[in-house]
């Protein structure tokens, strides 16, 4: 018990929760707009959604690499500016399609920059742990469902901006706090790399490829999970709540009990629970929560092999997610039985991948490195 308390106390809660909220706010605004964009034109709507996904996900490695080379810049500020500017353009000129589409491109870029800001900040303060990054990523699920619900209820756009406006001062405070605490070290990853160390001693390229493929598989099968129990809006809300909870718990439990153990156990248990729980809501939710837990492990593995480039490492996961979701834009999902077979194969691949790429169980125990940190 004392061990757990000690571990939990070492987490930088302020930065983790701040970026969790920033992520939440950003997704609320983006999904509020994108869920309700061009309601009268189905094809334009689909193309816009694809465009949004491509810009928001595929640009992250590029943006990450850029900000790693410019440690003095604060990506969060640029991200918020782009997000608000693009969202306003898209909403105000909703009737002029081309301006609205330009707005989508701008706020999708803002979304990508905010993700990189969160990834770099939480990776720095985590000092080798996975919890902070997992809490940051978990906030997104709550934002997605909140944004969709606001759009479905045709709530006034002002309310979609409120979380972003609240998030700005907290994000600035978190940024300032990191710079004061770590001085030169804050975002200079080239000189002061991350302290994550859960990757196996294998070639970097191979680990990045395998972990990227696991994320891609997770992204694809995430859309094909059997969820016959979803009949009401509250069920959809519960689905997203448990997804977010799984992502957060994946990081916390990996820090407490080891990334390999949590990665393998969650992968092994998730699928049977989801398959059996097709009509049993709580079993299915538990399975979905376990299914989401692998995210923290894959991200931690990528941080470990790309310790000088956390922004690019985060971009690997987003490229994986994009490639996993792209087929859905072109080919309708196969039947449930085909999806189930695919799920089984891809889950086996994920377990093998985690066993191959992740080897260290002592995340966050880098005491040697910790001693070198400035007070």
């Amino acid at each position: 018990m004392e061990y757990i308390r000690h571990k939990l106390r070492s987490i930088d809660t302020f930065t983790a929760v701040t970026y969790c909220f920033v992520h939440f706010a950003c997704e609320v605004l983006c999904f509020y707009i994108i869920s309700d964009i061009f309601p009268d034109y189905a094809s334009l709507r689909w193309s816009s959604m694809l465009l949004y996904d491509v810009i928001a996900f595929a640009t992250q490695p590029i943006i990450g690499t850029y900000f790693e080379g410019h440690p003095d810049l604060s990506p969060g500020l640029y991200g918020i500016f782009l997000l608000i500017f693009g969202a306003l353009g898209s909403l105000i000129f909703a009737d002029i399609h081309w301006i609205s589409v330009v707005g989508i491109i701008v706020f999708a870029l803002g979304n990508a920059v905010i993700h990189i800001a969160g990834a770099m900040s939480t990776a720095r303060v985590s000092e080798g742990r996975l919890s902070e990054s997992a809490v940051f990523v978990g906030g997104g699920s709550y934002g997605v469902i909140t944004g969709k619900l606001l759009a479905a209820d045709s709530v006034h756009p002002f309310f979609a901006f409120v979380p972003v406006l609240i998030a700005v001062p907290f994000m600035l405070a978190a940024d300032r706090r990191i710079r004061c605490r770590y001085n030169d070290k804050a975002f200079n990853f080239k000189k002061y790399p991350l302290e994550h160390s859960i990757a196996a001693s294998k070639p970097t390229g191979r680990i990045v490829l395998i972990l990227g493929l696991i994320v891609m598989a997770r992204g694809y099968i995430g859309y094909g999970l059997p969820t016959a129990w979803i009949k009401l809006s509250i069920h959809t809300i519960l689905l997203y709540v448990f997804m977010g909870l799984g992502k957060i718990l994946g990081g916390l439990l990996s820090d407490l009990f080891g990334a390999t153990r949590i990665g393998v156990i969650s992968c092994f248990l998730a699928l049977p629970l989801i398959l059996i729980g097709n009509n049993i809501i709580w079993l299915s939710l538990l399975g979905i929560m376990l299914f989401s837990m692998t995210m923290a492990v894959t991200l931690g593995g990528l941080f470990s092999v790309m310790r000088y480039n956390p922004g690019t490492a985060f971009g690997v996961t987003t490229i994986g997610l994009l490639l996993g979701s792209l087929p859905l834009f072109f080919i309708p999902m196969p039947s449930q039985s085909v999806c189930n077979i695919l799920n089984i194969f891809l889950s086996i691949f994920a377990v093998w991948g985690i066993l191959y790429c992740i080897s260290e169980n002592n995340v966050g125990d880098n005491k040697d490195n910790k001693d070198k940190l400035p007070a």
Partner: protein
Amino acid sequence: MNMCVLDVVAGEPELSFNYVVLFAVVFVAVGIGCIITVIRKSRS
């Protein structure tokens, strides 16, 4: 999901699908190129 992006509805304004796909290919290629460059640099 019963409909996909290819099902363009006749008579509707269209954000040229080919451009969006071209966008996707270019950005994904540049993104992957970026990752490969970073990995190769960190190796040397």
